[in-house]
């Protein structure tokens, strides 16, 4: 059994929901987790109650529940994306400095973020395209990237133009250095770190086919 075949776990690329389901399954029971705006938010749909995951939202809450609907909507209860959410039993509220102390003090087990680019050594670029006319906005991205014990990225592997977002070195302005530990994409799950990139599994392609798309050396992760 070659490593190329043994790590392909799906015969086609994963859709956003399948990828969210995979991330959700990879989160250890009892973890405290922050899900970034956008694609990472989908992960909450696939967390099982028996995992006992506590969701943090940086605008001042632990124990965030699903998106609010109908009569549940309360303008004073929103997530970091400013979307009305609900409160689970055992929730708590705190002010912004206390909320970011949770992130910055290294207390979150995992944050899941979107990205423009991730480098082979885990540098993250997800807040600024660097375009000269762009109005920058950073929010809590740098605090999450630097503070969480593990930073998972969810993104498509390729841009619309077919260029790999997993790169040797980020060309976009950085969010954090060496912070990303895993990259979940439609085509593969990558483990990043100081020793380079390992591929945990591929979806709809072999390791060799994946390597053809990505400009950094890939190795199959040791199981």
């Amino acid at each position: 059994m070659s490593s190329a075949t043994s790590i392909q776990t799906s015969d086609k690329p994963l859709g956003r929901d399948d990828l969210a389901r995979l991330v959700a399954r990879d989160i250890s029971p009892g973890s405290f987790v922050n899900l970034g705006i956008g694609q990472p938010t989908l992960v909450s749909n696939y967390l099982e109650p028996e995992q006992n995951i506590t969701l943090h939202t940086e605008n001042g809450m632990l124990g965030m529940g699903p998106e609010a609907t109908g009569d549940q909507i309360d303008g004073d209860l929103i997530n970091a994306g400013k979307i009305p959410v609900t409160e689970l039993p055992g929730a708590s509220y705190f002010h912004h400095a206390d909320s970011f102390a949770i992130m910055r003090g290294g207390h979150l087990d995992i944050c899941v973020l979107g990205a423009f680019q991730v480098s082979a050594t885990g540098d993250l670029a997800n807040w600024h395209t660097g375009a000269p006319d762009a109005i920058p906005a950073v929010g809590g991205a740098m605090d999450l990237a630097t503070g969480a014990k593990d930073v998972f990225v969810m993104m498509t592997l390729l841009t619309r133009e077919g260029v790999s977002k997993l790169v040797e070195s980020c060309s976009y302005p950085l969010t954090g250095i060496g912070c990303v530990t895993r990259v979940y994409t439609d085509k593969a799950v990558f483990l990043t770190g100081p020793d380079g990139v390992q591929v945990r599994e591929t979806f709809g392609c072999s390791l060799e086919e994946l390597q053809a798309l990505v400009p950094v050396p890939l190795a199959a992760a040791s199981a």
Partner: protein
Amino acid sequence: MLNFVDTVGEAVAGIQDGSTVMIGGFGNAGQPFELIDALMDCGATDLTVVNNNAGQGDQGLALLIKEGRVKKMICSFPRQSDSWHFDAKFRAGEIELELVPQGNLAERIRAAGAGIGGFFTPTGYGTMLAEGKETRFLDGKWQVFETPIHADVALIKALTADGKGNLVYRKTARNFGPIMAAAAKHSIVQVSEIVPTGGLDPEVIVTPGIYVNSIVKVA
């Protein structure tokens, strides 16, 4: 010294041109809309505004910006789908922006209230938001030196005040209120309800009255 005032106009009457004004809220939660409208009406200009965002839509802070009353924004997330007034002023070079990671914003505001002259944080190290800042290797990580953000005035929304100015908030509307109340020389608070002294449980007070100067009840 604590004052209970009858109108938002009285509450903001002392705000001077050139002031640094902190405004609570994250999105609409905890935004003191009535106080912002009163600030609009009172005419104070040349303001530095500290807020998480830089105004949304055609109301509140966005209007202040549109009318040219804000010379500088200190915030973490100015660009939003409906931040068109800020966007226009910024592109025209008519407003200054100090972009701050949200945790640094919160911690710098907290530092001002707590008498901390500056602190080192890993957030932002190696990024363009730390360019030109002092760095130091501490606790096994490169860290960036950040300084407190003080303000002349804070505009805050809380849920309930008692007769001593103690405050409680509601859900995620708490956000920046408590730290801004401590960081500003003069804190102006709009509340939904005022209860007699003793009407709030001492165990659950979030902002002690020592941080509060003016309280106005809004409908």
